[in-house]
């Protein structure tokens, strides 16, 4: 039922995209002379490029397909993943945290932990990140293979190997620079496919008011059209299945701040910006497309729910929620736009894999090889190491993808586990950046016990010992527990251990001058034109989010 019949024109449009992306990689190779060029893109990119790459790195297909699925399952309340679960954290990153990251001249997020807390915290974080990156890249590859299999009839193995090979070629040649240029291009191709799909989808059910009437009459009901109605504490009737407190604190605060402000695959884009102001504007520029993307994911999800018989009801032989976008592409798009949408799907899968691989090679080279495993080699050595790690990472990701094909449930659990690792780390960073007293042992103990606390809640919920009502609510509580334990343990252990040495704080903690006499503060860069002022951009993004939340309340 999902099988498409692309014409030669569709395949030509897809092939053209591959040629351009590979071309970027080959040309970018000439820009790579040092390991820093390969792994950091030479810190030379303008803010609009890093900003669009920032949003595209998160626009992997598991995200697009998953959010359309959420749209069909939970309705309009899915916007919480964008407006509460992303925008505030992105604004916070741009205005508060990015100045600290950029000023410290770190080349990765784990490296900041090394400067501030020492080697234990650093190694713990670097290894977890490296393992998670490879596995998540594998999950993305596997998801791509399933879609290719359903849409085009390609064998899963072929889909995995072909897409991995393309990613390997353009990142292996050009490194982070070509990954970022590729992501910006992917951003436009993804939207060029999704925007027409959303427009045709709404027209096919008779316009927006007909869509709303039909959703109200569907299993979602009236509250499927509202983000906040029916989320009262103790009286949750909204399909999202969580009350407003756990939405705001769990999703909006703990989960989203943990992901957006410390995930290196994202921060790396901002670190490659050409100056501090551009690095601050990276997540702020990204916030605006992020605010609008739900229009092209949730709307197709809702249309699929009402237009496809038995949608989401696999027991009755219907399609599963994840098929929303592929099924609508097949039903609604004629030759031509069909090719663009197919290219957009490919582009989004590759964006996800590329972001993971290009951050993996930096962390392995600069955070594991250079400081510990292969100290004091020439820059040439680290450049080659970066290339080798890229290749090895892609190969492991292929095996992970093949493994995922056999053990799908295991991969779901693994992803939940990485969610556990992500949740407490924001607490460690914010205490490290703003509280001078946070000691190395405090940071390490807090991070470790925070992870354990999150894992404990996860295991108890899986075993049925505690019940939070829904899977989403469980992940919110799990993240909340991890965060609280991290804060408490970090503070207690820091007070019980010796004060950190002054050189651990210089130039990277609020109010402590660096070796050059510059005191890190939240003073914002002076910019002459309004669209370069970080606070103004962040304020605009937040204001727009508030208005949209009221409109869709």
């Amino acid at each position, binding site marked *: 039922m999902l099988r498409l019949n692309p014409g030669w024109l569709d395949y030509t449009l897809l092939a053209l995209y591959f040629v351009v992306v590979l071309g970027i990689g080959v040309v970018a190779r000439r820009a790579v002379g040092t390991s820093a060029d390969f792994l950091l893109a030479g810190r030379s990119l303008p803010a609009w490029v890093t900003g669009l790459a920032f949003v595209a790195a998160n626009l992997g297909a598991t995200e697009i397909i998953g959010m359309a699925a959420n749209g069909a399952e939970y309705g309009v309340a899915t916007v919480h993943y964008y407006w509460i679960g992303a925008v505030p954290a992105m604004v916070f990153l741009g205005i508060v945290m990015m100045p600290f990251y950029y000023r410290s001249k770190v080349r990765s997020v784990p490296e900041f932990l090394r400067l501030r807390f020492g080697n234990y915290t650093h190694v713990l974080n670097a290894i977890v990140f490296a393992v998670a990156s490879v596995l998540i890249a594998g999950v993305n590859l596997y998801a791509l293979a399933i879609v290719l299999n359903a849409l085009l009839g390609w064998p899963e193995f072929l889909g995995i190997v072909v897409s991995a090979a393309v990613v390997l070629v353009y990142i292996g040649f050009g490194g982070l620079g070509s990954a970022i240029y590729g992501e*910006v291009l992917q951003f436009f191709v993804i939207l060029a496919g999704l925007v027409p799909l959303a427009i045709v989808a709404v027209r096919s059910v008779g316009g927006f008011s007909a869509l709303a009437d039909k959703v109200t009459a569907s299993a979602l009901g009236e509250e499927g059209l509202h983000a906040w109605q029916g989320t009262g504490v103790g009286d949750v009737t909204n399909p999202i299945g969580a009350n407003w407190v756990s939405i705001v604190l769990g999703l909006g605060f703990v989960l989203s701040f943990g992901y957006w402000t410390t995930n290196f695959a994202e921060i790396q884009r901002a670190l490659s910006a050409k100056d501090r102001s551009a690095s601050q504007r990276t997540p702020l520029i990204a916030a605006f497309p992020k605010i609008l993307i739900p229009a092209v994911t949730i709307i197709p999800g809702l249309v699929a729910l009402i237009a496809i018989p038995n949608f989401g009801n696999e027991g009755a032989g219907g399609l599963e929620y994840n098929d929303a976008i592929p099924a609508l592409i097949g039903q609604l798009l004629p030759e031509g736009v069909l090719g663009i949408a197919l290219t957009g799907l490919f582009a989004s899968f590759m964006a996800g894999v590329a972001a993971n691989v290009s951050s993996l090679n930096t962390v392995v080279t600069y955070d594991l090889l250079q400081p510990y495993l292969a100290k004091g080699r020439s820059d040439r050595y680290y450049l080659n190491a970066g290339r080798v790690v890229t290749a090895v990472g892609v190969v492991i990701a292929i095996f992970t993808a093949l493994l995922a094909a056999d053990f799908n449930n295991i991969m779901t659990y693994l992803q939940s586990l990485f969610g556990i690792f992500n949740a407490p780390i924001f607490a460690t960073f914010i205490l490290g950046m703003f509280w001078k007293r946070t000691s190395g042992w405090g940071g390490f103990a807090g991070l470790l016990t925070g992870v354990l606390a999150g894992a404990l809640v996860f295991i108890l919920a899986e075993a049925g010992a505690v019940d939070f009502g829904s899977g989403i609510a469980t992940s919110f509580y799990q993240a909340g527990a991890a965060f609280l334990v991290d804060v408490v343990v970090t503070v207690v252990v820091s007070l019980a251990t010796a004060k950190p040495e002054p050189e651990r704080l210089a130039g990277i903690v609020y109010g402590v001058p660096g070796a050059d006499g510059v005191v890190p503060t939240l003073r914002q860069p002076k910019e002459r034109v309004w669209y370069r002022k970080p606070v103004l951009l962040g304020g605009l993004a937040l204001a727009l989010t508030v208005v949209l939340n009221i409109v869709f309340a």
Partner: protein
Amino acid sequence: MSEPVQPGQPQTTVETGSRMQRLFDLRYVIGALMGVYGIVLVIRGLIDGPEELARAAGVSINLWTGIGLLVVAAIFLVWGITRPLGIDVEENID
């Protein structure tokens, strides 16, 4: 800009730093790809028959998407031509 440099860690110099950008201007790449896609879709849209129209709920979607892509392409090409690389307005950082 004077910021702390970690000992033993190579920092990029200005020359290597801007190499990627000097090699090619991404705005032209976006403009060219979107432009080609736009032209192809507009032509395809003009020869679309009733079958294609019916499939897309009566919307001439190839034509409209093509026009939209041409507008995006034009914006990037005009931006690239009027503000070539290298004359970027200087920014003040602390």
